[in-house]
């Protein structure tokens, strides 16, 4: 067991208070050994105990009428509120979502649009007003 130094003991008290029941189990033997041999450590613990007691005494619980009021208010609000909503399950997508990469939805949308455009009816080649045909039309036009 490593002996505990006073500053480590002070840190222990600052964090966990004076009550050994709240100390980390691994620190208790060394802290107790220090308390046995050091009056300064005992003084630090006594000072921490004063703060513990002051904190404990400074916080009252709710008065019975306050507790009854809170309980009635909650019951009234709950009576007006709808029943708790069950978590939403989106079927297959709900289970797949953790494995789908980000942007997957946009990619799927893009693919669908591309497929739809590729399936649109194309004009016949003779209907396309290409440059040779336009030139021919211009030559045929009487001046």
């Amino acid at each position: 067991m490593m002996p505990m130094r006073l500053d480590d003991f002070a840190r222990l008290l600052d964090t966990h208070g004076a009550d050994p029941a709240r100390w980390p189990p691994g620190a208790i033997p060394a802290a107790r050994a220090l308390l046995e041999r050091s009056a300064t450590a005992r003084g630090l613990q006594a000072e921490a105990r004063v703060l513990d007691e002051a904190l404990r005494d400074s916080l009252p619980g709710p008065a019975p009428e306050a507790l009854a009021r809170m309980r009635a208010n909650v019951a009234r609000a709950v009576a007006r509120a709808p029943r708790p909503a069950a978590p939403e399950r989106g079927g297959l997508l709900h289970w797949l979502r953790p494995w789908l990469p980000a942007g997957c939805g946009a990619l799927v949308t893009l693919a669908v649009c591309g497929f739809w455009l590729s399936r649109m009816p194309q004009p016949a080649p003779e209907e396309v007003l290409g440059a040779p045909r336009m030139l021919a039309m211009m030559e045929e036009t009487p001046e």
Partner: protein
Amino acid sequence: MPNILTLSLRPLIAWEASIAERSSPAPGAAAPLARDLSEAEDATLLGWAAAGDRRAFDALAARHLPLLYRVALRVTGQPAEAEEVAQEAMLRLWQNAAKFDPARAQLGTWLYRITANLAIDRARRARFQPLAEAEEALDPAPGPEAALDARQRRALLAAALEELPPRQRAALALSYDQGLSGAEAAAALSVSTRALEGLLRRARRFLAARLRGEGE
């Protein structure tokens, strides 16, 4: 070919068959009025509440409201605010009762987290008020000098608590007032255990210094 009588009876027969095929209710699914609310664990009560049993939720509220009130009171310093925070935390539990998974989170930690966050938000908006009622209510007064000492100490502590950041007050509330373990209190405040210890250490050092009359 089915005659008219058979056709007219078919829905009724089907309905009767569906009743007969129903399994007997499990022990936990007893009729709401027959449930033993006082003996049921939190998770059981919450399960019943999620199914719409408001009496079960009331039993949960009676169990947790005093604890939530104390956390909120430590952080806000105002009894009226503390009442509202505790009530709001319970209402959020009602709204999320069906989504809450006891296997993933402890109900107490979840409630403390909601309460601490609500109380910290309110404390940041409104000025902390020392607990004047506590001074009046908790004065054992074994003798005039001791009573004076105790009163002075409470006044010093109240003034010092007023200066603490709300998160440090919340750390004190969860760790000392409620006696949560370091891991539980850290989870309720959404910080690491080391960060929680830092909050506690700074808070206690500040309060101890003020009780010694330093730093004023």
